[in-house]
């Protein structure tokens, strides 16, 4: 069940991402006044598919929301609602809502669908549209069934605008029907819009035929009757609505129907138009659950056919297995060494060594392969940011154009996720503080539209991300003054501060130059958190700014990283991290319980003997006085050792980074990690140390490590 559920989440996520992308295109198109109907259809299909699968998997709220959005999109698609920035706001809001609903789970009421429906109602009204359904009309089903999409569109438009609809029954001679119709159209042109005309049901005989003309007019009924009846006998009847609906009689006269879109219908009963074969007009509400465009669904299935979605935890698991294999490999290497020392088995040892080398190579390949699978393009993140940029820019009445390069650059999935918040913050800052309002920009001789660039590229083992705006830039003098006021630096230090250091003041905790707090930024908790978060990913952030011409943040990140959970401990005044996977438990050391067995310290732990290893002693560090010490029980397989430490500093997710090549011969450490504020802690290679400790106990004569 949960697998299926995950499957749904992944697919929904994919759709939402695509929607988000399409909306951005739509936004651009709207600004340029060149909206492609295809794009709206694309969004429509996406929402439709989402609605379908959400319903199927019991995400009723999501499904309902998709349904309301689908209606709005339908209106857009058929031109009843004009695409405006307000409508786009609602569409973006909708996609945002989908995202939230997905995150919160099926039963959450995190998004008020009613509220959302009202937003939709509002924009629909505003755009001169409105929810209008034809079943409210007192019209024969058979009439509705044969309307072309365009006719139905016009019908809806008139219903929405509240224009009264009429049915005009006229009788024409079959021989003169064409000219009669032309005449009727001509007369009606100034006063009414003819939506369609159909042979009346059961009407007509011999060489005469009755036609039902469906028309809309805001002119008074008697005047209308006069004008239309001028050519002969005619019967005018107002079409009522079933539901009582308050309508306003706006004097908007709908544009006349273009002739070419109205091919004259042969008004004989036999040539009555068949039901349209393809793309029928959307059926009335209520029937909307029926997929009306199967090809769209097929398309979305096809596009993912050659990719596989994998839960990142499965990859983590594989990675751990690779780690275990590496341990096996080194065990084999040690055995090989032992065999080699026997003259009679030397040949065998050489062969074993060769096999083991091959094993090692493939293991590395496997590891690289898994890391590669974890990679995702940054474009996913950029799309999300683009949405926020649009929203923030609109909230602040700023014009922002986003330029993206390198969206295809790939980064570890975890990095992408962790990057989202820091980047969001930088972008909000850029729009809020950086890019000026259009007026100010024009005064400064810049284009009214601010340029925000997101650039990504790979550089060696790192990925570089640049967030650059062409806004006001930062005023170093103001930064320094603010820092002095807040006691971040002293006046003396401010005297000799370099411009680069002045800029970096923004990363100090508690720094904020804005006196007024805006909803976006300026709370002064931002930039230091951004820096910390990026550091935690093993990345760094640099800032460049030129007062008056812009600001640029450069983030350098490792392409991949291994985040692990670790227990932070203190030994002889230093910090060390122990990967939590090796830690069984940590207990207070009871000195009185320590026994010595053959020169080794041991304690009893739940009935079993636990050998102890004082890390300060093992690492030849000067022991510090401490009243309380702790035992961190580490286990690999069945073997356990209690490492004695001076203090426990809690558990933390850390990024293991390799030590430089010049330290690769140093045993006992898996790497190092950045704890922030320039503190670096070594990460213990727990299995290695464990083995080392136990081996030196078993074979004391061997000493530390054979080389």
């Amino acid at each position: 069940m949960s697998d299926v559920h995950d499957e749904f989440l992944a697919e929904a996520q994919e759709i939402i991402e695509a929607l988000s992308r399409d909306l951005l295109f739509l936004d651009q198109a709207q600004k340029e006044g060149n909206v492609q109907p295809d794009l709206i259809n694309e969004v429509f299909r996406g929402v439709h598919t989402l609605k379908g699968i959400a319903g199927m998997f019991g995400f009723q709220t999501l499904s309902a929301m998709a349904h309301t959005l689908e209606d709005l999109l339908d209106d857009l698609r058929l031109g009843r609602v004009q695409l405006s920035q307000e409508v786009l706001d609602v569409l973006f809001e909708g996609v945002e809502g989908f995202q939230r609903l997905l995150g919160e789970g099926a039963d959450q009421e995190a998004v008020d669908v009613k509220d959302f429906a009202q937003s939709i109602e509002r924009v629909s009204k505003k755009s001169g549209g409105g929810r209008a359904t034809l079943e409210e009309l007192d019209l024969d089903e058979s009439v509705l069934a044969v309307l072309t999409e365009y006719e139905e569109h016009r019908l809806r438009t008139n219903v929405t605008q509240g224009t009264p609809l009429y049915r005009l029954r006229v009788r024409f001679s079959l021989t003169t029907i064409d000219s009669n119709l032309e005449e009727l159209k001509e007369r009606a042109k100034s006063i009414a819009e003819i939506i369609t005309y159909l042979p009346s049901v059961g009407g007509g005989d011999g060489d005469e035929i009755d036609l039902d003309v469906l028309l809309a007019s805001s002119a008074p009924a008697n005047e209308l009757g006069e004008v239309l009846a001028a050519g002969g006998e005619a019967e005018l009847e107002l079409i009522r609505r079933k539901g009582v609906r308050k309508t306003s009689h706006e004097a908007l006269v709908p544009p006349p129907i273009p002739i070419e879109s109205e091919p004259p219908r042969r008004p004989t009963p036999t040539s009555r138009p068949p039901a349209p074969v393809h793309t029928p007009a959307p059926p009335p509400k209520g029937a909307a659950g029926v997929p009306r465009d199967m090809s769209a669904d097929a398309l979305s299935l096809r596009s993912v056919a050659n990719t596989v979605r994998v839960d990142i935890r499965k990859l983590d698991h594989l990675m751990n297995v690779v780690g275990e294999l590496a341990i096996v490999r080194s065990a084999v290497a040690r055995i090989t060494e032992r065999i080699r020392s026997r003259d009679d088995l030397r040949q065998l040892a050489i062969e074993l060594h060769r096999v083991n080398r091959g094993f090692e190579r493939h293991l590395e390949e496997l590891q690289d392969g898994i890391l590669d699978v974890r990679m995702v393009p940054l474009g996913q993140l950029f799309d999300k940011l683009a949405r926020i940029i649009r929203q923030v820019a609109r909230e602040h009445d700023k014009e922002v154009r986003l330029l993206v390069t390198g969206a295809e650059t790939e980064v570890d999935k975890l990095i992408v996720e962790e990057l989202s918040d820091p980047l969001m913050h930088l972008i909000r800052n850029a729009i809020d503080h950086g890019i000026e309002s259009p007026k100010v920009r024009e005064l400064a001789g810049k284009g009214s539209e601010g340029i925000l660039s997101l650039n990504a590229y790979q550089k060696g083992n790192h990925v570089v991300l640049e967030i650059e705006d062409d806004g006001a830039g930062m005023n170093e003098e103001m930064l320094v003054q603010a820092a002095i006021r807040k006691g971040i630096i002293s006046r003396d230090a401010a005297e000799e501060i370099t411009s680069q250091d002045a800029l970096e003041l923004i990363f100090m905790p508690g720094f904020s130059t804005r006196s007024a707090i805006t909803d976006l930024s300026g709370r002064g908790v931002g930039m230091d958190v951004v820096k910390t978060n990026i550091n935690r990913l093993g990345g760094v952030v640099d800032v460049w700014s030129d007062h008056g011409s812009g600001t640029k943040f450069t983030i350098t990140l490792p392409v991949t990283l291994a985040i692990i959970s670790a227990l932070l401990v203190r030994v002889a005044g230093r910090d060390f991290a122990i990967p939590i996977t090796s830690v069984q438990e940590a207990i207070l050391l009871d000195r009185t319980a320590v026994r010595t067995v053959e020169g080794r310290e041991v304690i009893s732990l739940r009935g079993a003997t636990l050998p102890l290893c004082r890390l300060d002693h093992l690492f030849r560090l000067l022991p510090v006085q401490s009243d309380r010490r702790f035992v961190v029980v580490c286990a690999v397989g069945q073997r356990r050792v209690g490492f004695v430490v001076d203090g426990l500093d809690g558990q933390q997710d850390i990024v293991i980074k390799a030590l430089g090549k010049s330290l690769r011969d140093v045993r006992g450490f898996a790497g190092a990690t950045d704890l922030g504020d320039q503190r670096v802690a070594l990460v213990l290679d727990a299995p290695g140390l464990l083995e080392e400790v136990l081996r030196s106990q078993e074979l004391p004569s061997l000493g530390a490590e054979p080389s």
Partner: protein
Amino acid sequence: MSDDPKRQTIVPAGQSVAVRAPTSASMLVGAPVVRELLAFVIADETYALPLRSVREILKVPPITGVPRAPADVLGIISVRGRITTVRDLRRVLKMPEGPTEKHTRVLLVEAGDDEVIGLLVDRVLQVYRLDEDEVELAAVVGGDMSEHVMGVGRPRATTKRDEDGDAALGNEDILVLLDPGPLLRRS
């Protein structure tokens, strides 16, 4: 706030590939006329490294000691997220210990093999641009010079690029030119 040298000595990204693993022979035989060197002091002696091998000059950050590391390794630091090994150049050159003072700096030097090493020096002096005839090759000087010594620089007063004057050397002063490759290689 060692801003100026910092700014000057950062090697542009595009060049970093080219400067990897410079060798004394290729640099000195038929070398271009001008040689740029960064001069610094350890235990009152003046040394210099090729400027393009020095990526950056840092004030001494907190250094995390690494148990079991070789004796000349002071520990590790994080330079923009990259774990970098710091070595004491006094110890590398087998000189007596010295205190860490106000002017003590860490030079980030390209050690070859794609690694950047931090080198602790007492004091950074300045950048020299030496003509060919101001450099004496180790081979020419002869004697029992170590492998990591490329030669000796004897800057003429006129060729110094010394903006503020306070770090100027006298005419008779010499620079021991170090070759980062052999200097930082582990045997």
